[in-house]
């Protein structure tokens, strides 16, 4: 399956989507959720926390394993998807939609450009497996 073309991607299998004025929504890719299997817990940061690009901002736990989440770009947390507290499996079912994880105010728009495009990410995943 090819990844949504409007998103940007990291080597850690997060996606970032520019929404409006300097804000991004961040989640994990379909490939990532598939590799993790049943997601049972997402450890979310607090609204107002700030991160630099590549900082650890949270944790995804599946039945089998635990995996850190890394910020694709720096900024301040505007919102976390608190629906994941009661329904973490949404990350499996709809990783690019209802399974989003955080909304961030972007400190530097150029950081998004440094991320992979959908076709680059698909090639990266293909090479990795």
């Amino acid at each position: 399956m090819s990844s949504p073309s409007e998103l940007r991607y990291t080597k850690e299998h997060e996606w970032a989507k520019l929404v409006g004025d300097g804000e991004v929504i961040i989640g994990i890719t379909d490939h990532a959720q598939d590799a993790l299997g049943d997601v049972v817990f997402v450890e979310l940061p607090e609204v107002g926390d700030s991160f630099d690009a590549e900082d650890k901002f949270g944790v995804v736990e599946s039945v089998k394993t635990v995996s850190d989440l890394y910020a694709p770009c720096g900024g301040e947390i505007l919102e976390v998807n608190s629906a994941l507290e009661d329904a973490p499996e949404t990350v499996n079912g709809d990783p690019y939609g209802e399974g989003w994880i955080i909304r961030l105010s972007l400190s530097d728009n150029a950081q998004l450009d440094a991320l992979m495009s959908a076709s680059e990410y698909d090639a990266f995943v293909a090479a990795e497996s």
Partner: protein
Amino acid sequence: MKRTPLYERHASAGARFVDFGGWEMPVRYTTTIQAEHDAVRTSAGLFDVSHMGEIDVTGENAVHALNRLVTNDLTRINDGQACYTAMCLPSGGIVDDLVIYRYSEQRLLICCNAANREKDYAWIAENLEDAVAIDRGDEFAQLALQGPKASAILQTLTEQNLADIKRYWFVDGSVCGVPTIISRTGYTGEDGFELYCPADKGGVIWDALFEAGGDALKPVGLGARDTLRLEMKYALYGNDIDETTTPLEAGLGWITKLDAGDFIGKDILVEQKESGVERRLVAFKMSGRAIARHGYDVVDAEGHVIGHVTSGTRSPTLGENIGLAYVPFGVHRVGSDIKIAVRNRIESGTIVKPPFVKPGSDV
């Protein structure tokens, strides 16, 4: 990585694979671990466990010869019966945990963990007196058919009356015409069978079982195998038990027959029994949402490390986070609260009486 004779079937069924002790094994198929787990608890699941090792032991007095290497007492089971046992070092540490099938005084078949196969064979060959061990791991495919509907499904493919095979008994029978050891054993807590057949015939039985089972039977990977066994507090070698832990520490006193004849490790285990173990493997439930995983520290009120977690997962049956940990004797009692360092914080848990889930098998 090594592959079982059923690898192609798993791949074409859409399995996700994982490296397990050097074997490329299905961790789950196309649904979720939860769905595979539920299938075994409520209907039936089929596992490819062909990675497990098999070692034949034969000799004039094979039962007594092998009995000197294991903690359980092979003289107290009958021909046609299987037993679960540990095999220990002189230190009391566990070389492996095994299921041993007793055919006769002269012949037994050992089923051992995949990752330990070479080590076990070397250890047995070195320590066995007046009997011969042969590694037959490559000759067998092994399937585990588990769940409340396992018996009904298997019965359609064999003339053997399965009601005659009690829990932990086995027969040399045949399944859809293939010579098969039909053993009423498993690693899930449900009724079910482990089937040993010639490696090149594993696929015949695999396909026939799915045809017979229809919607009632699902293929199940190692992910659910782990959650199923953990709900029963069945030990996983390399996680909960290893060469640094003794059977008594691991709560395996019930397979350690100190009143039997001599066996390797017995002296230390007798001593440990008399003076009391310093630590115990306990079952616990977490209070919060985090899962305590293998290797996490158990800490006291001051934050000092007093033990460690050996297994942890979300229990699909209970929807709670469960685990196993070694804790000091005294802390081990049911109802005690324990603290576990989870990443950068301390989470609490409570020691509970195992198993976490009542076994479904009443055979």
